[in-house]
């Protein structure tokens, strides 16, 4: 498989703050890699190195064999950035058409991509006046219209509603089938696991784990105990056999390899325990477990 992204020993500090501490990462043509990790893990910093916004002071970053700091290399790139703002003076259709021309594509490439992302009705609107999810779709259109060899997407699903998110993952699958490599960061771990060929977990600027979603799930707790409980997070974390604790508001999700033993302790500790279920663990529990273990 042809490599469209190669990162070796990438490091980056913001002043005294270390953000990346030596990261290796590859993306092949037609491969989708999900970059996961908690807030502040270094995902955006890595993305900024890959798209040429930051210089690689140490280590090596190559996009289709070229240095992304060079404009000619960036012809191969489509980028969705975290928290991008748009100018007040440009319209949706002008931005997508402009992105096509800048990438060496014909102006006519804009129409179909805008239709794909449901932007046709918004064509004449000023970009700065769009809603958050609409702006996100606009960015995606500007990235896709370049027909890039490598798509780099930093939280592209932020602010998208459920249908838009489905559409988005579907578009990624289509592009991947046409040989585009994809690097995508997201906090929607379960959704990404359906599309990602490989998952890379980043924390404190280091790669904690990397593999197929199934491999990561297999390395970690294979059961999730879900319940409504009065017990606090700190107490839960030290119960025997608990590998990860996650709270989704109403319920806690406890990752474990020994659900039976855990259930006995839980019931003894909290007589008011309710809504109890045990499920097979997913990628989300696996990643949470990896990060917790890595931090310990």
């Amino acid at each position, binding site marked *: 498989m042809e490599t469209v992204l190669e990162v070796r020993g990438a490091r980056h500090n913001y002043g005294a703050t270390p953000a990346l501490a030596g990261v290796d990462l590859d993306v092949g043509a037609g491969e989708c890699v999900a970059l996961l990790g908690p807030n502040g893990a270094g995902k955006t910093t890595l993305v900024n190195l890959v798209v040429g916004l930051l210089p690689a002071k140490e280590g090596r970053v190559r996009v289709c064999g070229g240095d992304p700091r060079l*404009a000619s290399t*960036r012809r191969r*790139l489509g980028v969705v*950035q975290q928290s991008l703002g*748009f*100018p007040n003076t*440009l319209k949706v259709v002008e931005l997508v058409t402009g992105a096509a021309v800048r*990438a060496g594509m014909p102006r006519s490439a804009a129409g179909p991509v805008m239709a794909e992302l449901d932007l046709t009705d918004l064509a004449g609107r000023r970009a700065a006046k769009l809603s958050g999810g609409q702006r996100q779709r606009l960015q995606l259109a*500007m990235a896709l219209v370049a027909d890039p060899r490598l798509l780099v997407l930093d939280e592209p699903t932020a602010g998208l509603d459920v249908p838009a998110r489905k559409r988005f993952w579907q578009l990624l699958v289509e592009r991947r089938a046409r040989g585009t490599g994809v690097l995508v960061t997201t906090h929607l771990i379960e959704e990404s696991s359906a599309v990602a060929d490989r998952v890379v977990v980043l924390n404190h600027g280091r790669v904690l784990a990397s593999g197929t979603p199934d491999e990561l799930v297999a390395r970690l707790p294979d059961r999730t105990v879900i319940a409504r409980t009065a017990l606090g997070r700190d107490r839960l974390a030290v119960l025997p056999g608990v590998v990860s604790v996650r709270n989704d508001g109403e319920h806690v999700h406890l990752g474990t390899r020994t659900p039976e033993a855990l259930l006995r302790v839980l019931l003894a500790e909290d007589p008011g325990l309710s809504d109890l279920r045990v499920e097979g663990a997913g990628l989300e529990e696996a990643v949470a477990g990896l990060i917790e273990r890595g931090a310990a």
Partner: protein
Amino acid sequence: MNAKVFGVELTDELRGIVREPTALFFSIVMPVAFFALFVSLFGKFSSGGLSAGTTMVATFGAFGVVSVVLMNPGIGVAADRERGWLRAKQVSAVPIGVTLAAKVIAALPYAAGVLLAMTATAAATGALDAPVPALLRILAVLMVGALPFALLSLAIGFQTGAGAATAVLNAILIPSAVLSGLWMPLEIMPAFFGDVAPFLPTYHLAQLALAQLTGAPVLTHVLVLLGTTIVAAALAAVSYRHARS
């Protein structure tokens, strides 16, 4: 390929001006109002056969042009960065030179606007007496001579916030204008001003414009402005590549 890219870059910049014309209007109003004041006070005095109102089109015109092209591009890109739009440009496949050229060319409507308004003001006060070809040459010299100042503006704008850019650029503009004799002739200023002036590109721009009326030699001024352009272009390019995002 690059011509098409330059086309969309320039079109986007011009849309920015046409769709928010208040910025254009107000940045022209200030220097022109100053000019109207000075020309109505001193415009009828004359020296060396030229009315002050006429020479002021060259000197104050240089101030007007420099003030608009030094302020606007820099403040614009600083605002773009604060808005988070500059990063989108930086990751695009557009070569630096094309982006900078489009931004600099897009500053010229400001320069043209200020010059036309000043010339009209001078004519309206009856203080203007120069042959039309000489006037046209002054306008051409000032438009082209504006380029290095637009580049310098960008170099600063890529590094600062919009508020800081306004302050820094003003801190460069006003002293350079006064020291170069753009507001009042150097002859009536302290001698020290005349010693400093030749080190300022603003002085050479004004002298080059004046030479279109007096026929004085222009080579030094042209060379200094060329050198300034090269240095400013390099600064702008480095600043763009290292712009904080």
